[in-house]
């Protein structure tokens, strides 16, 4: 493949997962697989109420149960004095429980079974209090306030740093309220814009709380350091440095006394930044033995940080010629009991996909007695995209325009304002739309009875963060590359290709070493589609520096100048003298024994990318809707994405397949449903429908390569964009098939059937 005028040997060619062998043989070690000598097992007692006062805790029976080592409450742990103001800091509940599923007591036993048996014998007496569950009621001015004295102060939550964009001005009003933050974006004059419009569509969209649904529930093992004080945490995380900082802060330990070792991670999708680690570390230090905690699926659903539910009131106007005149939105985010701020990003995307001179977006971040919301792959984007892309589709329809042409006409380009009025960096939205326009699935689309085709665009700003790496060559020619990032998506299988390319050696000769917080060079957490984008530059720099050292040794060895040397297939040779060649392993051996010269072959690289590289997608869904039942069957799915440059296309396509199906989950299947008392009705895979094998079609991934000017080799973030557009594309396909516009996710058969009934009865409840 040729790229930027150069030809690559390894980059841009598909390469299988480098840690595949461990994973297909059952040898990969996930946190819950770890057993340490003397290890104990922890089990949680969770709050059965969404809001209650803890009157008394009787642990005597539990403590006396066989195999029980300790039964601990908040006051027993070294975290006892920390303010409880985020999910991470809610190690164990103190005097009140604030959501159904909040951990209250931890039981530690010799076996998991002993701990679980005893946990059932802990008697917690509660005085139930009225919970505030409905987000609209919570946001009302006369609502009872969850934190009348304001949130307890101390530190900040660490899952918020997902997208490297300005999330807008955040103001907090003076009077106590359940609205903990507001974001307002204004451009032009929306009133004038709507007055100029020939068609205006105004609707309310609702998206539910959705769980990240990683297949490996949260798991962590902590081992206290009995001699120096401190703790080592082996955990399932996307960012060992984030976890270390939070554990150190909550346990009042200096950072160097906390070592966090990232184990193989069984999926994270934004959720795994240390939810249970402070608790496990605190318990291990308290009982002075290693402790393992593995959540059950139900506990995981109840006690972790799903993505927030949202209500989007959206009004968009357009002229008959197809130009957009105004976008106005009011967004309510249901963040659960502690603050989480996605409203800004929802606004940025709502007002950022299309050129529009007049805009007003008001986002309100609301607290309720539910678990604190957290990040889930492209946090906020499926919500924003569902709302804007449903409306855009109907505007095109109302104006008699082709929906794709209409989008192309208005699509944002590099430099156009995002919702917050900051300019988009280099983007390829039009390119993906053009590719879809020319794709047979769109161009030659044909629908049978009860079938429909829908399209939607989506995008994600993508994050970035500084990172470092170390590269060294061993005497047998093995090249080792050290990073401090976690591989959640095949990143490592792309990083080795960067090294392979620069040193011209087969990827099999390269070992990637994922460091812990002590041994790993710094890297940001693996979220926000930033890892390859941020770390590949550091890896490339380290590999290039190693290459220079190899040349320096070889020049000395052959007594020629560096300019006369070339590196090919792991051999450095003198140009024109093929028998004058030496392997990089031999050069490493020379370097390790020779007096003078550069010394052993090792080099470091640091990089801090200066601009983010957003990724845009255009998705197409074809559906069949059973008119008798409202059952939706996906017949075809095409996912087109601007990936910049696919360092490893196999990994990139895999991200697109998986992200698209998660988008389908948003569209048709997934919702965490709470009743009026704040009880979670969907706390297992029986009730929470993760898209199953036979519920989804093949995903045709189409990679558009529109190089980012800043990323390594032109790469862009690729992990998050594929989840953004699915729900909207499906809703538009259903509209195409049935004439019914669904405004609430997920679009379940029953709701669709009712909507179709209403339409037949001529009492359509959805205007437009």
């Amino acid at each position: 493949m040729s790229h930027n005028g150069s030809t690559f040997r390894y980059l841009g060619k598909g390469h299988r997962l480098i840690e595949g062998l461990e994973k297909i043989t059952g040898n990969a070690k996930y946190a819950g697989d770890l057993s340490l000598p003397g290890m104990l097992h922890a089990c949680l007692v969770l709050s059965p109420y969404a809001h209650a006062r803890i009157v008394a805790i009787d642990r005597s029976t539990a403590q006396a149960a066989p195999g029980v080592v300790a039964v601990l409450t908040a006051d027993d742990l070294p975290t006892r004095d920390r303010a409880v103001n985020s999910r991470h800091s809610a190690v164990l509940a103190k005097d009140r429980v604030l959501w159904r599923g909040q951990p209250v007591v931890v039981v530690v036993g010799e076996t998991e079974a002993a701990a679980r048996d005893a946990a059932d014998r802990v008697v917690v007496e509660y005085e139930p209090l009225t919970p505030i569950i409905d987000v609209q009621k919570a946001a009302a001015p006369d609502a009872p306030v969850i934190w009348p004295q304001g949130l307890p102060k101390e530190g900040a939550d660490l899952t918020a740093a997902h997208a490297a964009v300005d999330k807008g001005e955040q103001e907090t009003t003076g009077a106590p309220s359940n609205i903990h933050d507001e974001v307002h974006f204004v451009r032009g004059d929306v009133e004038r814009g709507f007055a100029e419009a020939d068609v205006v569509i105004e609707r309310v969209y609702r998206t539910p709380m959705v769980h990240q649904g990683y297949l490996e529930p949260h798991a962590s093992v902590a081992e206290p350091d009995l001699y120096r004080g401190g703790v080592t945490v082996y955990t399932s995380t996307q960012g060992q440095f984030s976890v270390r900082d939070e554990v150190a802060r909550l346990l009042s330990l200096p950072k160097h006394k906390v070592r966090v070792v990232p184990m193989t991670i069984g999926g994270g999708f934004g959720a795994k930044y240390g939810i249970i680690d402070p608790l496990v570390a605190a318990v291990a230090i308290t009982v002075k033995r290693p402790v393992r905690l593995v959540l059950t699926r139900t506990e995981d659903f109840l006690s972790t940080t799903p993505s927030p539910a949202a209500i989007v009131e959206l009004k968009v106007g357009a002229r008959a010629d197809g130009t957009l005149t105004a976008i106005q939105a009011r967004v309510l985010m249901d963040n659960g009991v502690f603050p989480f701020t996605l409203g800004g990003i929802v606004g940025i995307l709502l007002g950022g996909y299309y050129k529009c001179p007049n805009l007003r977006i008001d986002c309100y971040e609301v607290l309720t007695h539910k678990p604190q919301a957290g990040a889930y792959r492209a946090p906020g984007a499926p919500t924003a995209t569902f709302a804007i892309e449903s409306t855009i589709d109907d505007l095109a329809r109302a104006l008699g325009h082709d929906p794709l042409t209409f989008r192309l006409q208005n699509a944002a380009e590099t430099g156009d304002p995002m919702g917050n009025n900051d300019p988009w960096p280099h983007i390829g939205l039009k390119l993906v739309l053009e590719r879809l326009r020319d794709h047979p699935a769109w161009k030659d689309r044909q629908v049978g009875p009860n079938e429909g085709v829908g399209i939607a665009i989506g995008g994600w700003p993508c994050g970035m963060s500084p990172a470092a790496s170390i590269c060294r060559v061993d005497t047998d020619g093995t090249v080792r590359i050290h990073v401090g990032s976690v591989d959640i998506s095949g990143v490592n299988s792309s990083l080795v290709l960067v090294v392979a390319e620069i040193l011209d050696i087969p990827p099999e000769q390269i070992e990637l070493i994922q460091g812990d917080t002590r041994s790993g060079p710094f890297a940001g957490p693996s979220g926000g589609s930033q890892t390859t984008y941020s770390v590949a530059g550091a890896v490339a720099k380290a590999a290039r520096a190693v290459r220079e050292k190899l040349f320096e040794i070889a020049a000395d060895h052959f007594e020629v100048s560096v300019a006369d040397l070339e590196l090919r297939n792991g051999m450095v040779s003198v140009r024109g003298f093929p028998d004058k060649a030496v392997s990089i392993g031999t050069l490493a051996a020379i370097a390790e024994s020779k007096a003078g010269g550069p010394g052993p072959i090792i080099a470091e690289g640091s990089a801090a990318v200066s601009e983010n590289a957003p990724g845009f997608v255009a998705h197409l869904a074809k559906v069949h809707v059973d008119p008798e039942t409202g059952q939706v069957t996906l017949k075809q799915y095409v996912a087109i994405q601007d990936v910049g440059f696919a360092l490893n296309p196999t990994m990139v396509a895999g991200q697109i397949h998986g992200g698209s199906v998660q988008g389908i989950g948003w569209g048709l299947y997934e919702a965490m449903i709470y009743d009026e008392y704040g009880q979670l009705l969907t706390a297992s895979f029986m009730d929470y429908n993760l898209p199953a094998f036979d519920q989804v079609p093949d995903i045709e991934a189409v990679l558009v390569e529109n190089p980012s000017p800043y990323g390594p080799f032109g790469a862009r973030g690729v992990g998050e964009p594929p989840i953004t557009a699915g729900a909207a594309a499906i809703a538009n396909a259903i509209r195409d098939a049935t004439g019914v516009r669904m405004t609430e996710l997920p679009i379940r058969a029953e709701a669709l059937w009712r909507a179709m009934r209403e339409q037949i009865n001529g009492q359509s409840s959805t205007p437009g």
Partner: protein
Amino acid sequence: MATITVTVNGKSYTSEVEPRTLLVHYLREHLNLTGTHIGCDTSQCGACVVLVDGVSVKSCTMLAVQADGANVLTIEGLAQNGQLHPLQEGFWECHGLQCGYCTPGMIMAAYDLLQQNPEPTDEEVRHGLEGNLCRCTGYHNIVRAVQYAAAKMRSEEVPA
């Protein structure tokens, strides 16, 4: 406590277990075979699938005592003499795995599927593996992986 004798991956084990011990816990905690995973508590996800006397079973739905006298095959026993099973090869070559958490159960379930239907259609693969959840791959490449293995086991050319 109950005494059971189970052959796991060709090796015979005699163990004392609590009667309530699930097969998956027995494999993971007693035999330290942690390749068999646990993804749920309602027998929905399939991360725990192993073969018991040649038939795929969700090992979280079976008691260890029920496996007394049985022959159990787990992911750790699938490769023979360092030679990967075509399914393992297929999952790796076709990128049928990402985080890998679902993979052992997925492979074992596919093993049973191909035993029953050596030449499945894509549709039949999807249907046959509907009891196994994967959150990462979108299933697309798992279908390719199973077809790769099916072809290889029929000693045909593997599909491109």
